[in-house]
């Protein structure tokens, strides 16, 4: 078998909070507990193994990376206390940095970037809020342009605009 060693990937994985993938001893408890694996071809044990083997390209180009619902069942049960969800998030960060983004996720990110919330407000909701005696627009960034601009500065500083655009 070809030996793959990608120190850059290992360094990135560690920086993003996924270093403890190396603790996994492949018992399969995670896959056996995984509600997504029960319904799809996604196998979390295999994903952790691929991370140990530096198989970056195979991981980030595969849709299965996005099939975890972050339910934490596997994390609760892992006998090696691998922070599996953190590993998955780290791998997803790498996938996004390399341009692997689902259109629906991009939409949520755009909503945050353009409104400060993950879903838009609309007239029906405004009317419903008013009828309930709530402010028509909630007292969040939606009510304060300066606060929204502040949030945008933070998102830009972290390079979020490049992902969204």
């Amino acid at each position, binding site marked *: 078998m070809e030996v793959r060693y990608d120190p850059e990937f290992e360094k990135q994985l560690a920086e993003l909070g996924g270093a403890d993938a190396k603790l996994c001893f492949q018992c399969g408890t995670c896959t056996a507990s995984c509600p997504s694996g029960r319904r799809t071809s996604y196998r979390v044990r295999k994903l952790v193994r691929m991370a140990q083997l530096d198989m970056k390209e195979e991981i980030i180009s595969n849709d299965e990376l996005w099939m975890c619902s972050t339910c934490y069942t596997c994390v609760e049960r892992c006998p090696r206390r691998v922070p599996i969800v953190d590993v998955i998030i780290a791998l997803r960060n790498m996938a996004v940095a390399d341009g692997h983004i689902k259109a629906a996720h991009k939409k949520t990110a755009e909503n945050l970037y353009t409104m400060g919330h993950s879903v838009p407000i609309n007239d029906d909701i405004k009317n419903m809020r008013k009828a309930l005696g709530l402010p028509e627009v909630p007292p969040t960034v939606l009510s304060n342009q300066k606060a929204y601009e502040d*949030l945008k500065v933070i998102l830009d500083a972290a390079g979020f605009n490049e992902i969204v655009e």
Partner: protein
Amino acid sequence: MAKYAFFLGCIAPLRYPGVEKSTRVVCERLGIELVELDDASCCPAPGVIRAFSRTTWLAAAARNLALAEKMGLPILTICNGCYGSLFEAAHELNHNPEMLAKVNEVLAKIGMHYNGTTKVHHFAEVFYNEVGVEKIKAACTNPLNYGIATFYGCHFLKPGDVKDIDDPEDPKILDELVEATGCKSLPRKQKTLCCGSGGGLKAAFGDVAKEFTKTNLENIQASGAQFIVDVCPFCHLQFDSTQDALGFNIPVLHLSQLYGIAMGMSEEELGLSAHKVPVKL
């Protein structure tokens, strides 16, 4: 009197405003003072934003935490997603000085600073630990007797080692909270199975998410429950919006709405018209 900065999030105020309204009324009845956390944003959504860029997610969450810190108040959330996101961000920033310093460099651009002191709470945890079941019973002036399927969701109790609220594999607190109204929490199979909507799964692979929901609905139907009671507007949305397509018809209530009913709030005040599965009391 217990006092909290009220974190609204997105789905409650912008999709189910009745959840926000019920929380406000119920907290007042229970002696919890909610102060507006003005200018807050999305938590931001852990499923998508944290998956896109952990740094961005952390910096934007830090802004919300810093707003509450300035008020000198702990945060109260009414959503597992907001709770999971802000709790995890606070846990990291309050314990990792290096990361805190990094985030503060970003916050400095808008003249803000976070000292790492904000505590983040889930409303059901506050109801259970701070108010207590006995006091809730006494506040339920309109006792109920429905059969209920309690739905904990994932990020209320998990990861259990850092949250330490209840046993995530066999939790009891929501059942006790529901039974304080006079209702009966009915046992069922796979009570802790995820609703399917988290982690960006619903957005990217909605059909897979629905398969999770369907199993839950089958188990709930078999239990004979008349209502599903959740503690998360995102689980709430998933159960409420998929039942038509999945061929089920079990009304969904957020715990604050169940309490609202038991405390005599009117149907209008509970904002039930936003629900797709009709709620008949």
